[in-house]
């Protein structure tokens, strides 16, 4: 049920046609193999290996790790290339793939987040089924990040839904089954609207390629956008996300928030770059999402719910400047995966309870490093990503996005100002608070990869380091922390859970459809 299966019978004929082209464009000259072959092997590999893991349960972790490292290498090679390449399999109505640095960033994000999660689960008693699903999920997310036609995207997104459902329901508790069921139901309903839009695009062009959206009727744009916005957790269509990401198991939350939710965002960026008149709509949704998410995040009382709402707001940042969204998505994926993994090991999930306990330094430092990156402080890639996004913002967006940045600083002050005990603060007869052996064994390698990635990511946009920008980041953080200590404790408002009820999640789709339609027509 993946796009690869549909392609393979015709592989032989297409290879011949594409061989000359690819050698001459030569994205991977150092391999000496044409791009098409490498790409197809890379797309197919996770699916073959994923099912093999189930047959060879003894090698589950090794196989999963190998596939992830291959994917990382492929993504890195793609993200440094400066050309874009379109591959047509079969014909104009067949599968279209587009490879450029934007997809490269998303693929690297996916690979690093999966790598972090695999290292985190390395010593845990997870069954081969878990690794099978992680690898199939990784493969389908990768497929979504390179396809450039609506049908392959549909197939990739639906495979993602199924694999994500199985991962969410992995503990087999009734609660996890309900959380997964709700996710599957909402995303499948959204995808039905998307399918309607896709056939309208086909009718206008005799092709499902993304490029055909310009000639398609307006309602096609509205239907497709509704599907992608719901899947990507944008604005009010994204309110399914806090429960799903907040209530899943720790490694699954990290996967969902770090990479899976971006499969709805990537096609939106791609469509916007293809069709400039959609640009204002996507930017507006970006701003609205950033503000809505951050408001909820400030008011959240639960660590994982706060992180989930914050994911919504960060997706807004990715959409606000479509051209450079890839880099922002990369830094957000790394930060959010490390935060979810760390928050899952805190003694409690309620901030109120956590304030009464004392954290061991290891967990606190992990939280602070990731929080600093997401708040856009220098030394971390988050700083460069934020600077790059701000550079490409339009004037009307800047104020709103600065407010959202202050909101981010406020919401992460909740982590930074948790009580912590350093070794030198221990009283004479007191005992040091340390993390248990198992937590540090699970967490250390994962955080090493994720936070290491954040430090290395600085290299992508070194021009960000100017005095004015550093000053701005520090001032934003200062304002955020001041507000956290002065204004925020006085807010007792507790947002209602009603908008997150199942019926409202489905009902809001009809409202969003109308809204997007009139935005497109206007």
């Amino acid at each position, binding site marked *: *049920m993946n796009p690869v299966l*549909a392609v393979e019978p*015709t592989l032989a*004929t297409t290879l011949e046609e594409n061989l000359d082209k690819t050698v001459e464009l030569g994205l991977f000259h150092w391999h000496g193999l044409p791009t098409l072959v490498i790409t197809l092997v890379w797309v197919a590999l996770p699916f073959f290996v994923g099912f093999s893991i189930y047959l060879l349960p003894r090698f589950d972790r090794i196989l999963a790790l190998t596939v992830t490292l291959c994917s990382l290498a492929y993504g890195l090679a793609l993200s440094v290339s400066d050309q874009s390449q379109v591959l047509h399999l*079969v*014909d104009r*109505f067949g599968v279209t793939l587009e490879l450029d640095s934007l997809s490269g960033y998303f693929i690297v994000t996916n690979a690093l987040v999966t790598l972090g999660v695999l290292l985190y689960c390395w010593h845990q008693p997870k069954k081969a089924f878990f690794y099978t699903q992680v690898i199939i999920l990784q493969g389908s997310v990768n497929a979504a990040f390179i396809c450039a036609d609506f*049908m392959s995207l*549909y*197939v990739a997104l*639906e*495979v993602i*839904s*199924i694999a994500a*459902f199985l991962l969410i*329901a992995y503990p087999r508790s*009734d*609660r996890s*089954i*309900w*959380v*997964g*069921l709700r996710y*599957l*139901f909402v995303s*499948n*309903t959204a995808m*039905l609207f998307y*399918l*309607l839009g896709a*056939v309208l695009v*086909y*009718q206008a062009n*005799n092709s*499902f390629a993304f490029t055909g959206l310009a000639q398609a009727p307006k309602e096609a744009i509205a239907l497709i956008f509704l599907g992608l916005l719901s899947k990507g957790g944008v604005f009010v269509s994204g309110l399914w996300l806090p*429960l799903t990401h*907040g*209530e899943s198991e720790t490694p699954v939350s990290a996967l969902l928030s770090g990479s899976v939710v971006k499969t709805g965002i990537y096609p939106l960026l791609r469509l916007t770059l293809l069709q400039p008149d959609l640009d204002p709509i996507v930017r507006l949704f970006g701003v609205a999402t950033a503000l809505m998410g951050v408001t909820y995040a400030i008011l959240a009382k*639960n660590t994982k*719910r706060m992180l989930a709402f914050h994911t919504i707001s960060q997706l807004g940042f990715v959409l606000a400047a479509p051209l450079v969204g890839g880099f922002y998505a990369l830094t957000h994926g790394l930060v959010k995966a490390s935060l979810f993994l760390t928050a899952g090991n805190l003694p409690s999930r309620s901030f109120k309870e956590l304030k009464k306990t004392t954290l061991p330094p290891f967990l606190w430092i992990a939280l602070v490093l990731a929080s600093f990156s997401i708040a856009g402080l220098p030394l971390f890639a988050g700083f460069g990503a934020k600077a790059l996004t701000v550079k490409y913002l339009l004037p009307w967006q800047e104020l709103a996005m600065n407010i959202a940045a202050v909101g981010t600083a406020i919401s992460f002050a909740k982590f930074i100002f948790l009580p912590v005990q350093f070794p030198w603060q221990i009283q004479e007869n007191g005992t040091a608070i340390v993390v248990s052996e198992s937590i540090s064994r699970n967490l250390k390698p994962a955080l090493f990869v994720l936070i290491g990635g954040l430090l290395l990511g600085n290299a992508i946009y070194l021009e960000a380091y100017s005095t004015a920008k550093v000053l701005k980041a520090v001032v934003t953080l200062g304002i955020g922390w001041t507000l956290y200590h002065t204004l925020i404790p006085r807010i007792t408002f507790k947002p209602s*859970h009603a908008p997150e*009820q*199942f*019926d409202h999640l*489905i*009902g809001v*789709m*009809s409202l969003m459809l109308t809204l997007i339609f009139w935005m497109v027509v206007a």
Partner: protein
Amino acid sequence: MLGLEHSLEFSLEACILATTLLGFFGIILKRNLMMKIIAMDVMSTGVIAYYVLIAARSGLFSPIFNPNDAHSPGAASGAASGAASSATNALGSATTNPIAYADPVPQAVILTAIVIGFSIQALMLVGVMKLSRDNPTLDIEDIEQQYKP
């Protein structure tokens, strides 16, 4: 005659879109989780029918390649380009070929969507089966109340 055909096609399209909408409202208005899933199936039936309708815009005959049909423009190019030729065939049929073939692409594509839709539905029904042990009424409000964060 053309007018009648067009109005028939329009009413067919209206019925299909009405099915989709009815399914959608069923998802919202039905309280039982099982009924919600069935409503989603109704909605997906509507979507599938829409694909079939759009495929039938160019003709109603099944687009099956027939070697005896050598006079048709697509068939001459042989089986090597398989799917490509039959599509050209279907598109070109209105002018040169008396046989009006249906467009094979939406039909092929919706077959994938049907399979995906039905596997998702099977998965959801298994989930509901599990849930029904603790929530025999499967009422959405009870379930949401019980698993509230």
